[in-house]
């Protein structure tokens, strides 16, 4: 199976910056994910949304990378939200308690709605 390395792009939406992620979040993804987060953070948003709709694989190293982003968001008092996870990865976010620390939403509309309300 060919590696499906992570691609990431950043866009601005009312209420926050969205990181559109495509591919795999594993040990190969660190540089791409960190650079995309840097770009999103540079715009000074109150919230950063991670769009997982294009992500088909997250391993334990990828979980650690997401923990790293969450730590950065906390340190800068910025909200971090996630949407577009498959049911399997929603369950993993619950088991690992990641979902206790970042908001998990089914889609972009509901995530942005949460940001605009709070």
């Amino acid at each position: 199976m060919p590696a499906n390395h992570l691609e990431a792009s950043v866009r601005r939406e009312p209420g926050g910056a969205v990181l559109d992620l495509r591919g795999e979040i594993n040990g190969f993804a660190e540089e791409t994910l960190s650079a995309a987060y840097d770009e999103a953070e540079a715009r000074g948003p109150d919230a950063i949304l991670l769009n997982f709709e294009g992500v088909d694989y997250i391993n334990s190293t990828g979980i650690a990378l997401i923990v790293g982003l969450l730590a950065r968001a906390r340190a800068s008092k910025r909200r971090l939200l996630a949407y577009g996870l498959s049911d399997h990865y929603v369950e993993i976010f619950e088991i690992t308690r990641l979902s206790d620390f970042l908001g998990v939403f089914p889609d972009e509309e509901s995530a942005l709605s949460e940001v605009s309300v709070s």
Partner: protein
Amino acid sequence: MTAPRSDARRTLAEFSLPSEPGNERRAMERVAEAVSGLGLPERTLEKLKTAVAEATMNAMEHGNNYEPEIPVDIQVWHLENCLLVRIVDRGGGPPPSPNAELPDLEAKLEGVQTPRGWGLFLIRNMVDEMRVSGNPDHHTIELVIYLKGDDDAG
């Protein structure tokens, strides 16, 4: 190494992979293909795939130090009441602890602990049983999914 005892034992797959980053995905896809005839619920299959990928990654990294010429051996059995996946590396020393406690996420977020260290915990929560053993030449991890009974992980 001997196969587990059972009156109704069937080998579904037996293969080896080089210890190279990313090969855990090959392992999980090959195991998924091997069990495709068992009709596992989708949720159970996804959990099995994650467990196989994490166990293979541990074997490649901690057992074989990501040395490509050292293989990870994977066997898949359909037993009478369960599915068993055995993953073997060539590492010496003590095997990983089977006590996969929930990592302290708060400590990781505060930078007191490394953000890594999720693998065994994930594996333990994806299957009905996780067995870990070792000898001077190998570490073995066995992943068990019950196919009948009340304790189905799916």
